[in-house]
């Protein structure tokens, strides 16, 4: 047998798997559909909210208003993160993937890294664009505006991107657990969008701890913030606590998903 190619020394590494995962991500239309949808729908929501702004009283928060569209990114980012793993199962590609790179922890590290970096970079850009778009519209309506130099504004804009990357990682974790697109998206949408409605009805004290509420009231908001060191009852969490809690949610979901992924038969 005359070899057509020579094997390089050593063995396959994380960098090979990352390259492979990036190509995978960029060669399916769903990536561009979810990101395209995020841009269009997200900016449309920001435009509508800032254009129709009513309350311009003392509690008015132009930063939060201009970031509203990123809630859409929370949903689409979750769909994106979930699909990155569930599409492998629904298409059967997972078996080809594991045959190519059978070390599951390495594969997971590559996938988690690609998901996190892609959504974070994208959402940071989205966050800034939405902020500036919102301020431009608010200014056109004669409403109060914020700049990146306004207290808390740059913090809110940057943290929003990170927060949505964490949401997509949580969805990726649900994808690892459910292994089906419908299941993962239902679980994600359930936690992020349905749970707040349920909790409002049964236990209001838990509401500030829910991802969606953290995003809008702790991360995007720059006014009505709890002063550092103060303890609020039923009020929004501070940005740092809120972000840390979301890190915890994503980590727990990913940890459960990862353990199952490594242990279960493909």
């Amino acid at each position: 047998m005359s070899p057509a190619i020579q094997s390089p020394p050593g063995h396959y590494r994380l960098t090979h798997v990352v390259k492979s995962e990036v190509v995978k991500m960029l060669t399916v239309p769903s990536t561009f559909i979810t990101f395209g949808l995020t841009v269009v729908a997200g900016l449309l929501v920001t435009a509508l909210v800032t254009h129709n702004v009513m309350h311009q009283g003392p509690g008015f928060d132009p930063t939060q208003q201009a970031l509203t569209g990123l809630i859409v990114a929370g949903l689409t980012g979750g769909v994106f993160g979930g699909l990155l793993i569930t599409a492998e199962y629904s298409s059967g590609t997972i078996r080809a993937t594991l045959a190519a790179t059978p070390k599951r922890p390495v594969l997971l590290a590559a996938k988690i890294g690609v998901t996190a970096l892609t959504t974070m970079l994208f959402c940071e850009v989205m966050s800034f664009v939405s902020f500036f778009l919102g301020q431009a519209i608010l200014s056109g309506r004669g409403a109060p505006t914020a700049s990146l130099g306004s207290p808390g504004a740059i913090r809110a804009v940057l943290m929003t991107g990170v927060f949505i990357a964490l949401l997509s990682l949580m969805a990726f974790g649900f994808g690892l657990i459910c292994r089906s697109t419908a299941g993962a998206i239902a679980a994600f949408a359930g936690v992020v969008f349905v749970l707040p409605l349920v909790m409002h009805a049964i236990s209001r004290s838990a509401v500030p701890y829910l991802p969606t509420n953290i995003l809008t009231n702790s991360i995007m908001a720059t006014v009505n913030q709890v002063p550092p060191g103060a303890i609020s009852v039923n009020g929004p969490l501070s940005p740092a606590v809120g972000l840390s809690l979301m890190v915890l949610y994503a980590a727990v979901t990913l940890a459960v998903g990862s353990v199952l992924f490594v242990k279960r038969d493909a």
Partner: protein
Amino acid sequence: MITAHSLTKRYGTTTAVDNLTFEVLPGLVTGFLGPNGSGKSTTMRMIMGLDVPDSGSALIGGKPYCDLAWPLREVGGLLDAKAFHSARTARNHLRWLALSNDIPLRRVDEVLDQVGLSSVAGRRVGKFSLGMSQRLGIAATLLGDPGVLLFDEPVNGLDPEGIRWVRHFLRGLAAQGRTVFVSSHLISEMSQTADRLVVIGRGRLIAETSVTDFARRSGGAAVRLVTPDVAEFTAALIAMGATVGNAADGSLTVDGLRAPPIGDLAARQGLRVHELTPIAASLEDAFMALTQDEVEFRPSTMAGTLAVGEEE
């Protein structure tokens, strides 16, 4: 070389693969034969590291799949004809596979050419026919130029031309010195493709032997006899200790005597012979007999009788 040693896999109370031990040697096509649901796919998945055995081991060149340095350069596996994302193009499917094992990207076009898919390389695989998908799956196995290849039911759903192509391809790979392991539930297909057979039934090893030996040992040879002198011939044959059966077309099926003594008998007694044909034991019959009745054919005894004529 692939070695399975006491491989066992249970799903709940069902034992899908039961203490399976066999070897797949380089330079030959080894057929992995068994009825549907006999544990062929599960065994292949364990070899590929997709499923973890409950006990025993499956090694490739002495290593578990998971420990291979460059899996795609060492093993090519086609376990599922449609294991592609339908929206991805054929070329892109092979590109991500190549990158994962640092395989030069020129190999992508080389293997597409090898399987005859160059003209549809840019087409989404969701639009592919089963035959084209099968070819793409084979292209993927060749990407890393591996020495060991596994194919799970590669001709399923293919048209005769496709079947012939796959058969020719597998033989070519073995002729290059590669280890080729092909599962099938069709003995007729395996008899034309494989050199050796690993036969399983209900997850247990029934035979590990050569194709010719499998046919020879699994069923007695009979002789078909067409004669106008049925009554006289039957009496004479029974007198010689043969068993005579009447076939639907009026011919006789003689068991226990080979063609030469039957011809001699005809000459001695002046009986007319219109046709005298030795019938090779049907591989299907042998296969059915071996796999249908697990009680009668315990793997331990069958392995003992059938493994005698093993070919290297």
